[in-house]
């Protein structure tokens, strides 16, 4: 008999999905209630996960579902981000008239899919989780169906994502063909010898994953989808799928393909360098904040991949630290975006920020902190994130990667500075509304405080993450 207690959080979320669906259908005008219940059930799921034994290391269902410290930490991160996304975007979906009962339920579905991805230890389980999250995301991207951009982004995401899923599946079948198993641990045992088909399988899988994480050259969907989707979905896109995809990256590279490091290391380094440089350069010309943050997140994924490319436990841990800090920074950035509201209309162009500091000093200060942190300027959290990555990279004597990465931060600094310039140095425009709901304010204050005060006690997160063992 399997120990089902270990997957109580997943079970709980599945039950909540079904319950809320029925509840929403039968009770009229319950969209806000369903939304709030979703948030509450996420909090409950978080409590359930935290309640699990931190040191647990076990697997279920014929060793195809892993419950270990990595899964536990990433799920906590995932659900925490989910809660904050829900808190910060509740007002937005009401005002942009997308407050329907399906919205929170789809979010729950995709979170469930991500949790399955995070824990998967088997090609098939992994693929199931991936599709569950992707299908929910396709709908979410085009949720504002009366908006042309939103529809376009949903379609674009669907077509490209389906293509990449196809590649990924083909990679999985190749791997299965050459290793006679779908279990990650068994693949590692069975693939001691390198064969061409196997290499192809690895490449296909990495391409599929690179697409999900929007690494260059598989990033084309990201700017359009980020810009076209409703902002509440964009923030979801910017945070949660990255956590899941990065975890899957870690699992693939460090369990089934660990012995084949020579085969994938160059690929990851290439993805990393291309993302860092391209993300930094392409963001310079952007006028839309959401599009800009899409390029910025491409560039940030490059740094996270740089940590993975080292092939060491330290590299992986530092990538996890990186993604954690990245999440907080993006959350803070999007909270600021949610505050740019005037007469029930949201503003998302860089020019709309002009002279913001005169009318909204506190909001501008938060943006200042977030942007300098994204640029990686000490003593803010973003600097430490990059610092840890480069510590791991330089330890492996990969100086080229380190120097390219750091030079890319200088290029990236330019466009972050440009926003700061517009906020602080340019003439002021009309005021935005200054009344916001509590959840949004709390999200912004908490994330900004984290970024600002991180340097006082940087060991906290490092200590937690250094407990995570990969293999």
């Amino acid at each position, binding site marked *: 008999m399997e120990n089902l207690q270990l997957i109580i959080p997943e079970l709980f979320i599945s039950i909540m999905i079904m319950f809320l669906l029925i509840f929403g259908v039968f009770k009229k005008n319950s969209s806000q209630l369903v939304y709030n219940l979703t948030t509450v059930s996420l909090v409950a799921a978080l409590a359930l996960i935290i309640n699990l034994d931190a040191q647990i290391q076990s697997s279920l269902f014929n060793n195809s579902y892993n419950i270990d410290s990595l899964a536990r930490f990433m799920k906590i991160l995932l659900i925490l981000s989910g809660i904050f996304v829900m808190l910060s975007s509740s007002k937005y979906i009401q005002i942009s008239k997308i407050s329907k009962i399906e919205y929170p339920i789809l979010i729950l579905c995709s979170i469930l899919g991500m949790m399955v991805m995070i824990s998967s230890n088997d090609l098939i389980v992994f693929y199931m989780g991936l599709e569950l999250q992707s299908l929910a995301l396709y709908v979410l991207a085009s949720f504002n169906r009366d908006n042309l951009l939103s529809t376009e982004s949903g379609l674009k995401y669907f077509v490209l994502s389906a293509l990449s899923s196809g590649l990924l599946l083909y990679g999985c079948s190749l791997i299965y063909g050459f290793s006679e198993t779908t279990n990650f641990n068994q693949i590692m045992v069975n693939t001691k010898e390198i064969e061409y088909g196997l290499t192809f399988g690895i490449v296909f899988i990495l391409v599929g994953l690179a697409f999900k994480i929007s690494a260059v050259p598989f990033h084309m969907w990201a700017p359009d989808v980020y810009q076209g989707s409703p902002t509440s979905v964009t923030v979801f896109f910017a945070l949660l799928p990255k956590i899941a995809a990065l975890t899957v990256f870690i699992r693939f590279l460090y369990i089934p393909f660990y012995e084949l490091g020579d085969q994938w290391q160059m690929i990851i380094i290439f993805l990393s360098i291309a993302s860092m440089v391209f993300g930094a350069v392409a963001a310079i010309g952007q006028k839309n904040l959401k599009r800009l943050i899409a390029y910025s997140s491409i560039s940030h994924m490059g740094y996270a991949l740089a940590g993975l490319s080292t092939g060491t436990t330290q590299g992986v841990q530092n990538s996890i630290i990186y993604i954690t800090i990245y999440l907080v920074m993006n959350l803070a950035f999007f909270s600021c975006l949610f505050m740019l509201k005037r007469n029930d209309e949201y503003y998302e162009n860089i020019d709309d920020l002009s002279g913001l500091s005169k009318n909204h*000093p506190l909001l501008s200060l938060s943006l200042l902190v977030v942007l*300098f942190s994204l640029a990686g*300027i*000490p*003593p803010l959290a973003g*600097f430490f994130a990059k*610092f840890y990555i*480069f*510590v791991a990279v*330089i*330890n492996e004597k990969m*100086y080229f990667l*380190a*120097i390219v990465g*750091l*030079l890319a*931060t*200088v290029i990236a*600094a*330019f466009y972050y*500075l440009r926003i*700061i*310039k517009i906020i*602080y*140095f340019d003439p002021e425009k009309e005021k935005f509304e200054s009344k916001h709901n509590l959840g949004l304010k709390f999200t912004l204050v908490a994330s900004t405080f984290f970024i600002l005060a991180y*340097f006082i006690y*940087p*060991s906290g997160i*490092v*200590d937690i993450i250094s407990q995570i063992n990969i293999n």
Partner: protein
Amino acid sequence: MNFPILSSLILLPTIGALFIFFVRSSNSQYQSSKYVALFITLANFFLSLYLWIVFDKSIVDFQFVEEREWISGFVNYKVGVDGISILFILLTTFITPICVITVNATIKNRLKDFLIAILILETFMIGVFCSLDLVVFYLFFEAGLIPMFLIIGIWGGERRVYSAFKFFLYTLLGSVLMLVAIISIYWITGTTDVIKLYELGIDSKYQNLLWLAFFSSFAVKTPMWPVHTWLPDAHVEAPTAGSVLLAAILLKMAGYGFIRFSLGLFPDASLYFVPLVYTLSLIAIIYTSLVALMQEDMKKLIAYSSVAHMGFVTLGIFTMTQQGIEGSIFQMISHGLVSAALFLCVGVVYDRLHTRLINRYGGLVSIMPKYAIVFMVFTLGALGLPGTSGFIGEFLVLMGAFKKNILVATIASLGVILGAAYMLWLYKRIIFGKLINEDVKKMVDLKRFEIVTLWLLVLPIIFFGFYPEPLINSIEVSVANMIDMNDLDKINKLALGD
């Protein structure tokens, strides 16, 4: 004595900034936040003065060392001072209150934000001079960019955006390579603790590359010749207080870095790259002096003269003689005082006429006699007349240079002459000559707060010009020790000889 005096020095301005930030104020209360800032910076000055008094000048070791675990198992927060760094801390805490006093005339809008920026900047500047860990040093060194970027960008002149970007990106580009070097040092030696690194030494096969990485950062910040172009722009556009801080303290971070890290950690590489530094320094001295001669904008002229003076500093440091290094440090302190004063002087006339073009002035002596006197003292200080602090610095540097290389010293001496030329010519064109412009005639002489700030700077310039002993005293032991340590290293290696 367990009171963490250095940490208090670092933290006090930030606490002040937080206080100003959280106390909500309407326009009428701007004055009160100014007094808070003044009080905090003065308290910091007296605290550092106390530090200097109790500091034992005869001991080689770092004093008032505080160490605390920070990033566990990796980096410790470690601060401490020796005879060299304590002078820079003193300079910082001395200049900052003067900047706070000047905000009255120069800053018209968002005074509160300006004071916060200055206070935060003071924290970072003091942090740079007393950190004894490479990562902590880098943190403070880079963090200073944020407030300075805002000071130039928000309160600057017409081309402020361009200048602020140029300042930020140049400095950042230089510094990222230093970060690679710092992490490499950690993996080579297992520590980033400066004191331990002094003891361990770094294998000479790594030194050259590491030295270059540090050099790229410090050369931009100093600034040395081909990468100096951000400085004139930044100076011209920054508000007076910003220019003062930039010239007096931010530039000195690099000179300090050269002594503390380039010489201290990579002695072999420093020796190897001496010709490079000599060349760049000489070009800086001669070329920028010539450029300064041709300037029509007062602030630009002083900015180029700063580059030339910093050329003397780098030259002196890399003579690696007792006199040369002492001279460099003295020159840095002196230039900190003189250039701060000159920028304040420019600020005084700029506030009245709103132009910095030299040919718009002339004949000020007859309407602003008090101004003419202090400006003369600073001009003479800048050109290094005996009896001002500028003389001692340049003289010691040249002495050190003559010991090592007569040709270099001769060329550098030419720079002194050029320095006299552009400074005296500037003085002549502004102060003497005929009073032609109508609006110049309406200018009023120094106000009370201007007299106070300017005379506060006149006193140390003349005092240290006649009696440099207190400064030399405090750096002598540390410099001697640094030279000893590095020479010993070399002798050891020669003895092992293979």
